[in-house]
């Protein structure tokens, strides 16, 4: 067990957990930020995607104890006073079915669009390929990423 500080969604928080505890479980069980989802635990499905210093990572596969110097952003911290263009696009196109994977999808899309603000169709499909949507709302995810890019330009 060790105690350390994290910066999550702009707030300094202190946690006491085992050193090997993945960020996912620190967020969910210690900080009550349950928007980040558990899907597979081995970095294969993308449901747990969060941003570390703006870059999308799989929070199930990264111990929180190594992230004390980083800015961590979760789905809860994405919108400040209003929805982000990515969230707006998701809403406008009525993307979710069950909705469980969508936080991870939105986090992946947000980070991707930061790196590539005007992506081609194939670039979107490549970027989102790592996130599984079991309901297969893939058509709408693809369109929403394109729409978000348009909104941001």
């Amino acid at each position: 067990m060790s105690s350390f500080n994290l910066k999550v969604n702009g707030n300094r928080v202190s946690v006491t957990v085992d050193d090997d505890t993945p960020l996912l479980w620190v967020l969910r069980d210690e900080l009550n930020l349950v928007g980040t989802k558990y899907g597979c635990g081995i970095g294969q499905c993308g449901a747990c995607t969060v941003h570390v210093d703006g870059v999308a990572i799989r929070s199930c596969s990264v111990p929180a104890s190594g992230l004390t110097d980083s800015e961590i952003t979760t789905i809860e911290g994405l919108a400040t006073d209003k929805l982000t263009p990515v969230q707006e696009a998701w809403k406008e196109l009525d993307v979710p079915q069950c909705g469980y994977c969508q936080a991870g999808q939105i986090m992946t899309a947000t980070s991707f669009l930061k790196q590539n603000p005007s992506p081609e169709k194939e670039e979107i499909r490549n970027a989102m390929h790592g996130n599984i949507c079991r309901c297969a709302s893939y058509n709408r995810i693809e369109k929403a990423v394109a729409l978000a890019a348009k909104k941001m330009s």
Partner: protein
Amino acid sequence: MKDQNKVTFSRRSFIRTSALASGGLLIGFNFLTACKETAKPPVDISKLNFNDFNAFIKIADNGYVTIYSPNPEIGQGVKTSMPMIIAEELDVPWEHVTVKQGDLDTKNFQRQVAGGSQSIRFGWDALRQTGAIAKQMLVNAAAAKWGVDASTCKASDGVITNANGDTLGYGDVVNEAATLEVPENVSLKSPKDYKIIGKDAINVDMDAIITGQPLFGLDYTNEGMKYVSVARPPAFGQKIKAFDATKAKAVNGVSEVIKFGDKIAVLASNTWASMKGKKALDIEWANDGTLESTSDHDEELNKILDSKNLDVRREDGNVEKAFAEADKIIERTYESPFLPHNCMEPMNFYANVTDEKVHLVGPIQTPAGTARRVANLIDRNEEDIHLEMTRMGGGFGRRLYGDFVLEAAEISHLTKQPVKVIFSREDDMAAGIYRPAIKYRIRASLKDGSVTGYHLKEAAINSNMYGLIPNFFPAGAIANYKVESGNYKSNITTGAWRAPYTNFLAFAEQSFFDELAIELNTDAVQLRLDLLANVEDGKDPNIQYSAKRMIDTIKLAAEKGNWGKPNSNTYQGFAAYYSHNTHVAEVVDISLDNGQPKVEKVTVAVDCGIVVNPTGAKNQIEGGVIDGIGHAMYGDFSFEKGKPDDTNFNTYRLIRMKETPIVDTYFVDNELSPTGLGEPGLPPAGGALANAIRNATDKVLTKQPFIKELNKRKTDLTV
């Protein structure tokens, strides 16, 4: 099928009203009784009280409406679409409506189920009636206030208007309305007057989903709750011989380890500790039955297909005679593996069993039946059980089974503390209730250019096609027709998986029809239309598909999908299938990329009657089609000595973005009662894809997953 215009009801016993202390009107109705197809109003209305209701409409004195939706939401969209139907007849602006998941009272619940794509179909009449009755009461209250006859007043968009042009908002009369008699008869709107039904309404949980608010079972926590991982036998047919929990108990955060049945629960202060604790258990497993492998199942199912003693499920004419007189006989055997459901939210449930009550919270498709099973298991009265449903991160049939609820209840009962059982992905895939492996053998006799006989045998693990499935197309279309089935009892647990049986049966039959079309030198679509021309709608009560509706659906798909006129380097495949009361036809366009199929587009025509919420409806079809293509292409789940070969997404392949086609959906325009959409889009997809692949490569695919037959190795999907 019935005409929707000007239907009146006299079923007021489903409805009660009362004034709210805080101002406003509360309308309660028994959604489940009301939505039951065969339900009759209770004889003695006076014996009903508010406890008998499970769905409520609250109209506040500002006119805003809250609808408490009672049905489980698993991503099929009923939490949005069912309240839309009430709001339509109540005639309030959709923007003034808030939808909440109804609180549950298992004592009074009989049919609170999400499954079989039936929620909208059964709910249609009752929901409209409820909204219309509420509206009539508000109109009656306004008329009384004005001292005019109610028939001279109209209500629209939450405002009541009389002949003089005076207006009152719903909120202005709710308190008076609450004291009025429930009207005996009301008229329902004509579909041409719909303002909410047929217009896109986004998911009512949208904002919570996209901002990460707690919604799902896995998100639920409660004071003092322990997180629990459960070690279950790694192979079907095993039990615990001995175990040592010393190392597990040494894991930081682990508070308790208990054995229950053939399982061991590790309780901890957080999920990670419970998972680590479980891994640290030393367990010796012993065999307690046969350890079955996929090769054993293969053999057993083949034996069934070869057997002469199967259960006859439907028989018309004389197939033996047709085969004896045939010019040619075509025979194929189709094979599918087990499939896990793989809901993105793994199975989980919260339970707190105390002397006073049993509190259960989580994602479950069958709360009533599950609550009863819990009561039996821990010897409690059903009245002690309070079950709350959360939004579900997918269901696909898996959450019909309450095994995980029983585990949580038993652990809480034994340890006397609130617990939440959480399956890891590996637990979820290895302790599944799988789509059973199935084989179909289909034979057809051809004579003088037509199909004279059709004989289908089903060999499945544990159970067979249910209900009216043996009467689905081509029953009624071929004079000599026979369906038989048999099963092999395995200790591997199996159950419903999105569009049970038809999810694979449709592939087998729709692939087979294309082979018949080739033999008969007929266009694949034309063959289906020719067969459907033999069917007389309504003649056989067991045949519930409509030839007319299927023909219209097929023609719409062929037209919108440019059937027979593919783009260059594109190959097409067709399939049409009726299931869950909905008719669907699909045209799949593929191209070849290094000889491997790339699915480009699927054009879908659907006849589900009136489309309540087009955006939600299309979402279901898009998802169902891609799900069907994904599992037909990649879904591969086998067992070796009782143990599944895959337990996570690194080796178990689900379809992902780059493999998905564009899905274009068109609805047949009619005013018939709506039917469900959660399942019917899926069954035709695999068949249409197989037909496109055959048209492109001449490869006849008879086994799922196709990827194996297409000589591609199962790849590690590290991303």
